[in-house]
């Protein structure tokens, strides 16, 4: 047992979709579901960590307060957290460290979003000092542009094929089809994927993550509280990694149009994307060989293959073999994205890292229904938020 463990007493989600309603509604729905799952009353919650949304005005920037008020003020402290796609993990870390410091016993972590249609775009105005604005202005470098760069590199370096990328999407669509919270509950064949329009060559429309509305919440507590609450066997958060890169970071990442220069100082032994899960393994005292399943951030189908290597499931260049052998499908050696992943959800930014944790929790409790990974005991999430935010959480059986 790690000294940093906290218990996951309850999880809850609002179904993903394009509902067009206020994001607060999704978050409140998720909190209520998580509290019911935890058999706790809102008045027992001592801290709220909200994941911010940057697309819904001021209430989105102060999400902790927005959700606390919507649930009914009880005077408790809140925090509001933003780390792009890694927002949920940052919020979880704010709540977990408060519990581990002995400052409270029960905390709610929540994130929700209402998203506009189409490409995510930078803030308005002539923002010539903002790399996010500049990459659109000078290069037309949309998010899928970066996904396309990574995918093409896998093809030229490792012999990945368009068929492999379509395979990932088809696999995840079979996983997510029975997930009641997924937005796209449809099985795609590789042929259908390969017939969809090209977006950022070699990636096609059905291989690129959409933007969605959705909300997810988690109730965590100290192990002592969980025991007293009759939930001593609840799944646990065994590690939270929120690492940032180490200079020189030589991987071209959103929203940058240059990497650091490696002409002077030595490149770190472990690149940024490899360091994300590594820090989580170190904290939990486990390794990739101990995993039952993984939820990784498939912003594109091809990106899922990069993650196999980044979280240590295989060596660089071997991800395609894992995929082709069926290792990462449910029933295989190490199922990846049993929830259906972003391919079935679309991204609701501040909720998505929490959605990954909800899935691991249901899997470890054996409550994942048709998508259940048999005997799931330990799972990892991996994700990355633009501007250098790592995010990886390990959940294990209690």
């Amino acid at each position, binding site marked *: 047992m790690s000294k940093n463990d906290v218990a996951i007493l309850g999880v809850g989600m609002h179904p993903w979709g394009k509902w067009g309603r206020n994001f607060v509604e999704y978050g409140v729905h998720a909190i209520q579901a998580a509290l019911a799952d935890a058999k706790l009353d809102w008045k027992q919650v001592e801290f709220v960590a909200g994941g911010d949304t940057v697309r819904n005005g001021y209430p989105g920037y102060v999400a902790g307060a927005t959700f606390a008020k919507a649930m009914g003020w009880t005077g408790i402290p809140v925090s509001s957290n933003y780390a792009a796609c890694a927002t949920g993990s940052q919020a979880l870390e704010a709540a977990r460290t408060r519990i581990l410091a002995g400052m409270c016993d029960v905390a709610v972590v929540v994130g929700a979003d209402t998203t506009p249609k*189409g*490409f995510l*775009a*930078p803030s308005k105005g*002539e*923002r*010539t*000092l903002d*790399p996010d*604005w*500049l*990459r*659109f*202005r*000078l*290069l*037309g*470098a*949309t998010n*899928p*542009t970066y996904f*396309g*760069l*990574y*995918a*093409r*590199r896998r093809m*030229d*370096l490792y012999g990945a094929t368009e068929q492999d990328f379509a395979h990932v999407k088809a696999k995840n669509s079979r996983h997510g089809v029975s997930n009641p919270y997924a937005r796209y509950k449809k099985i795609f064949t590789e042929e259908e994927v390969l017939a969809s*329009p*090209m*977006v*950022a*060559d*070699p*990636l096609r429309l059905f291989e690129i993550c959409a933007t969605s509305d959705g909300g997810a919440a988690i109730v965590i507590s100290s192990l002592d509280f969980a025991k007293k609450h009759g939930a001593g066997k609840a799944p646990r958060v065994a590690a939270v990694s929120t690492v940032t890169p180490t*200079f*020189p970071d*030589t991987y*071209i990442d959103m929203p*940058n*149009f*240059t*990497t*650091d*220069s*490696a*002409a*002077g*100082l030595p490149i770190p032994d472990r690149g940024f994307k490899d360091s994300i899960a590594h820090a989580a393994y170190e904290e939990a005292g486990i390794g990739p060989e101990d995993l039952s399943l993984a939820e990784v951030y498939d912003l594109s189908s091809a990106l899922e293959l990069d993650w196999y290597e980044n979280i240590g499931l295989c060596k660089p260049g071997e991800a395609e073999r894992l995929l082709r052998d069926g290792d990462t499908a449910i029933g295989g050696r190490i199922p990846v994205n049993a929830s259906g992943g972003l391919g079935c959800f679309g991204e609701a930014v501040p909720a998505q890292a929490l959605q990954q944790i909800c899935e691991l929790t249901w899997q470890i409790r054996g409550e994942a229904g048709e998508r259940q990974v048999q005997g799931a005991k330990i799972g990892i999430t991996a994700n990355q938020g633009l501007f250098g935010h790592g995010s990886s959480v390990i959940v294990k059986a209690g």
Partner: protein
Amino acid sequence: MSKKRVPALEGWFTLDDEPRLLGRRDPKSGSYFFPKDVSVSSAPGFDQSELEDVALSRTGKLWSYTTNHYEPPEPYVKPDPFEPYTVAAVELTEERMVVLGQLAPGIDPADLEVGMEMELVLGTLYEDDENEYVVWKWQPASAAA
């Protein structure tokens, strides 16, 4: 009919036949930075006040490339009608940093291959009634006439 050729961003690159990106170099750590006017990155523990202005080299190896088939949102100024465009990532050999840029017009992306030698050129980003706004672009070194 001839429009004035102006940089899309002032002070980021030279306008000569063999254009260079304008960056900075830290003489102590040996690290390069681009662009120089935006605080995008630092070598930790090194004093930024010692950075020297430097024109970066203009050749490197193709890291990857992709062609966009959908219209990007603003602030991209898209031609009418919209045309797909290719974005290339090139690792400058001397500075060992990857720099993104659009592929120069007239280059077929089917001829690209990761690892090939590339060089920096100038190309039109967009135009208005008076000016042609130029930005750096990449082309295969072998494409130089």
